């Protein structure tokens, strides 16, 4: 039987802000090609968790390994090299307001792939825009786009470096149900098309059910339970079941 290759290993991670303990011994392993949703209430520390994975926040203690590298031991240069392989979709999209869609997409390209020519850059920008269905927005500013379009452009920026891992921070929050469902299916199709591994941070059950292969429940700073959607709702843990009620 083929052994699954872990791409993210999180072991006993603790993080507190003053007296507010957010992560209290969190454990999770994500395997190659797998989508894992981390579900939890607002303020439960989901976003803190993925910011620790990408090195935007430093855990107080614990071990995080991404693509075989211990995140806490990486130099700035090594961290930048790792970040080129890890895409991050921000909850607020984080598109640069002063730049056009093209410039937003070119920004990570220019930073990580210095040798790429202008023609190659253009081709990559158009390819990734077509993959999210918005090639006509290339010269528009983010303020000219709707919420759903901005989310797609942010997703395109996440995909442009062809990451091996994608971290989605609340990808459907703030979107109407139809647009949210479109984004959910887009995330699922990206997993199939690119064989990328993902962590989806959300409290959207529909997203977790459709796009995730496995769900981890973040309750009281710990991974309370993990498994397939059906297995979780069939379980007996009242705190987990309360989330699905």
């Amino acid at each position, binding site marked *: 039987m083929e052994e699954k290759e872990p791409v993210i290993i999180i072991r006993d991670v603790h993080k507190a802000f003053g007296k507010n303990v957010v992560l209290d011994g969190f454990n999770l392993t994500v395997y190659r090609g797998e989508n894992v949703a981390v579900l939890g209430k607002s303020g439960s520390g989901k976003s803190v968790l993925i*910011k620790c994975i*990408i090195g*935007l926040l430093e855990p107080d203690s614990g071990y995080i390994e991404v693509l075989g590298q211990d995140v806490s031991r990486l130099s*700035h240069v090594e961290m*930048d090299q790792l*970040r*080129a392989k*890890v895409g*991050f979709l*921000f*909850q*607020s*999209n*984080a*598109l*640069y*307001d002063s730049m056009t869609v093209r410039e937003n997409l070119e*920004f*990570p390209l220019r*930073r*990580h792939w210095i040798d790429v020519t202008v023609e190659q850059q253009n081709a990559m920008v158009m390819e990734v825009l077509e993959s999210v269905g918005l090639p006509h927005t290339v010269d528009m500013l983010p303020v000219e786009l709707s919420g759903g379009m901005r989310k797609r452009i942010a997703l395109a920026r996440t995909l442009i470096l062809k990451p091996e891992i994608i971290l989605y921070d609340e990808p459907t929050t703030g979107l109407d149900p139809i647009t949210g469902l479109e984004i959910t299916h887009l995330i699922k199709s990206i997993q199939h098309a690119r064989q990328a591994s993902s962590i989806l941070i959300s409290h959207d059950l529909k997203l977790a059910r459709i796009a995730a292969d496995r769900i981890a429940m973040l309750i009281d700073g710990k991974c309370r339970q993990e498994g397939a959607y059906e297995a979780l709702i069939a379980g007996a843990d009242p705190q987990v079941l309360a989330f699905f009620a």
Partner: protein
Amino acid sequence: MTKVPGQKPLLEETGELSVFAARFFREAFRSPFEVQEFLHQCYLIGYKSLSLVGLTAFIMGLVLTMQLRPNLVYYGVESQLPAMVGIAIIREIGPVITALIFAGKIGSSIGAELGSMRVTEQIDAMEVSGTNPYKYLVVTRVLAATLMMPLLATIADAISLYGSYLGVNLYEVLSWKLFITQVFNYLDYEDVVPAFIKCFFFGFAVGIVGCYKGYYSSKGTEGVGRSANSAVVLASILIFVIDLLSVQVAELIW
């Protein structure tokens, strides 16, 4: 005493600002250099401030002349008006007023821009994109503000003197050549050089305070407004402190 939310104690704020400024000197001389962004900021901070600085400088020169003239006439020394106005503008009023206008326009805009980038996670996104946000956002803006401020002050001085020339000519006929000769007859290096040098410090203060306030902005849109506002207030205070210190230092040297 009631603590204002989001407001830090004075010593803590001073310490954090000093650490933030020290980081500027570490990062500014280390590659990679963000030349394109720096030039873009020079255009925004320098060229885009020119009309506002020019207008205020012109009015300042004109009004100063009109206000001074009656007293000089009273003492019978109105012929000294160009020299007096020239010294006042070049030594003190030109640099300080320009710096205050600069703080109001550039300090607040940097504070608001970086603050809004912070709360909408654009600074985090930049870091994830393999860019050092401090270098890209802070170093370029502070450097541009430091270099543009003396240029703006020099242009403001020239426009202000022209305003003063028109002010003199409202009451009597005086040629531009005679006016400017009278101004420069009374000006020395010790008037021009310290005034020019302190403009670099004014520009640095405005840039670093605006960046500091914006970079560490929090608490959503309310925090952005507070960052912009406190950037102007703190930069304005620093301008007067630097002005006071520069006068003392200039007196020691000359």
